[in-house]
């Protein structure tokens, strides 16, 4: 009998853990109370916002980084603005179905005025109409598919990052003009983000007369030695439009193991302290915040909160900050934050500078106006050195 009770308890614990891991249930995680009000009108500036991201599951590494930066932004903004904004998190596991469930929970929560996320373009496609019907602003820090803003189906959607149709050609043109390969290999990781960038780049390579070897490998693979064996002596560049920086690091090690000399060119998903193969290039939609003096305090706090952060955190900080400032401005105008007035304030955002090293202002579709493109080269110490930005 005792054994059965232990088993039942264990099974219950296991199911709870499984539930935490796989469901889209949300929980209140942060309620940073105002530590010093800046004006009498904002002392009672109370609001709830959500964050959707893959906090567990295959790309939890991405979601946890985003969550850490969102919490950081809330903490800093609450202190700076004297607001009391609470963050509610919803785990989507990068799955549109999970994201839909979380969004239904968020939109049915009358206290919630805006949302950060979701992370993936496929998720935004699924939840955009729901947020639109609810009149709730949602800002992503990583969904880059062009259709999200072109289609007109997501009227309350905003993003603080560039689009694939801008990044892909910019990457490809840089490779053609500056690295001048006669033959290159491009490997997608079978995710929408990666295949989209690959499709945007290959025609440009072919038009330039470059022999292109296209490979495809699951994001879940951790050994690339079989593909690396196919990198020929004539192949001077390997393009990795990947989301998992650690995989790019392993690819670089496999190259070294087999004494292959090809240069790796990674896209924004590989921009991370986990990817440090010397001589590699990494393009990004944001700068290295460690190199921006104005970001020093954020970089130090981020280092403490999430030591191995990469490219996914800072844009989410920017997205959260946009919402925080919108709420603060609503309060300062004497109104109580609601979905409608926060949405209007987000639409009217005009930040002269941001953590991303550029102004933040949205066009009528929700795209970032003047989104910059950054290119880094990794030096022998594994540090990212800016090559160019446009």
């Amino acid at each position, binding site marked *: 009998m005792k054994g059965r009770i232990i*088993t039942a308890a264990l099974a219950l614990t*296991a*199911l709870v853990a499984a539930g935490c*891991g796989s469901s889209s249930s949300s929980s209140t995680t942060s309620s940073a109370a105002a530590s010093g009000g800046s004006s009498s009108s904002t002392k009672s500036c109370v609001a709830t916002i959500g964050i959707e991201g893959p906090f567990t599951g295959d790309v*939890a590494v991405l979601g946890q980084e985003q969550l850490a930066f969102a919490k950081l932004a809330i903490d800093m903004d609450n202190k700076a603005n004297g607001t009391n904004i609470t963050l509610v998190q919803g785990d989507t596991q990068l799955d549109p179905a999970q994201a839909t469930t979380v969004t239904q929970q968020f939109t049915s929560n009358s206290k919630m005025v805006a949302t950060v996320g979701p992370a993936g373009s496929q998720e935004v496609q699924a939840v955009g109409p729901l947020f639109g019907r609810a009149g709730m602003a949602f800002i992503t820090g990583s969904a880059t598919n062009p259709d999200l803003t072109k289609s007109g189906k997501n009227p309350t959607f905003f993003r603080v990052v560039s689009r694939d149709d801008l990044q892909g050609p910019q990457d490809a043109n840089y490779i053609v003009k500056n690295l001048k390969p006669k033959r290159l290999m491009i490997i997608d990781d079978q995710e929408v983000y990666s295949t989209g960038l690959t499709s945007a780049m290959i025609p440009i390579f072919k038009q330039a007369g470059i022999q292109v070897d296209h490979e495809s*490998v699951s994001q879940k693979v951790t050994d690339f030695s079989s593909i690396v*064996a*196919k990198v020929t002596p004539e192949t001077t560049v390997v393009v990795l439009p990947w989301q998992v920086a650690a995989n790019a690091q392993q690819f670089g090690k496999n190259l*070294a193991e087999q004494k292959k000399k090809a240069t790796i060119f990674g896209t924004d998903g590989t921009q991370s302290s*986990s990817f440090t193969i010397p001589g590699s290039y990494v393009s990004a939609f944001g700068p290295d915040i460690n190199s921006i003096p104005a970001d020093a305090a954020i970089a130090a706090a981020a280092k403490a909160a999430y030591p191995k952060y990469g490219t996914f955190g800072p844009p989410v900080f920017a997205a959260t900050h946009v919402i925080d400032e919108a709420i603060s401005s609503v309060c300062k105008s004497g109104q109580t934050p609601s979905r409608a007035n926060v949405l209007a304030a987000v639409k009217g955002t005009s930040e002269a500078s941001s953590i991303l090293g550029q102004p933040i202002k949205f066009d009528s579709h929700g795209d970032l106006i003047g989104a910059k493109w950054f290119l880094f080269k990794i030096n022998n110490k594994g540090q990212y050195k800016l090559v160019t930005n446009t």
Partner: protein
Amino acid sequence: MRFFIQELVNGLTQGSLYALIALGYSMVYGILKLLNFAHGDLYMVGAFVGYFVIQWFGGSTALTIPVPLLLLFMFLLAGGGVGMLGVAIERFAYRPLRDAPRIAPLITALGVSFLLENSMLLLFGASFRDYNTSAFIPFSSGIHIGVLNISLTRILVIVLSLVLMIGLRLLVDRTKLGRQMRAVAEDREAAEMLGVNVDYTISMTFFLGSALAGIAGVMAGLVFNQIYTLMGFVAGLKAFTAAVVGGIGSIAGAMLGGLLIGIAEAMISGYISSTYTNLIVFGILIVVMILRPQGLLGRAPLQKV
């Protein structure tokens, strides 16, 4: 030819790890008829134990002990620690359900899998961790002839895996514990009546299977460098496939299945395209299952009439 050998070595490395994990699946299934879905996560725990041993001794770039000693500690602690974890899982999660309908321990195994994954996620975060093996076992060591490059780490993994597999085979075939394991697998009640300590035998089976998974986790860290809390899922799935292809319940079958799948993956990736690796590998699985449902080296179940 050198390209073929390179891909063969790549496949043998991956296949050896599949085989070591598959052995645990197969042993547990053989003795309890339980598909222990938490087994892949034990491999993940082993990889983390190995990582923390490296950190304990100064980190990959500043080791305070000789590399052979470090490797010994990594394998012993991962094997022993994960082996004990396997025993604990059996004792508290599976033993109370030994006589329950088969679906109950199966669901519990899934629960234990999620429990391990999410506990590790909460404890150590979602970040990838890097063994950075080349800092203490340089790529320059090993075999380098023209385009053929086989690192010492890969040689170590293949050789150690073969030694472990042969050792396990000898243990099962030639020791008292092995006879007890075979007896329990054949007929648990009859073995008990003949004086076999069934609980002890099952615990030892879990210990051995889990220890092999833990050691495989360390090997994966050494050769593939990057470890993370969900790394056990795909590896476990492939190893389970290997166990089924080889004939679940058969130790030799698990070894054969693991090596076959690893080599097939490398050859398909090398000679056809990595795009089709899973498609073809699982296509082969379906063909094998249709032609030989009991697996390559599995025994067809006896029909009692």
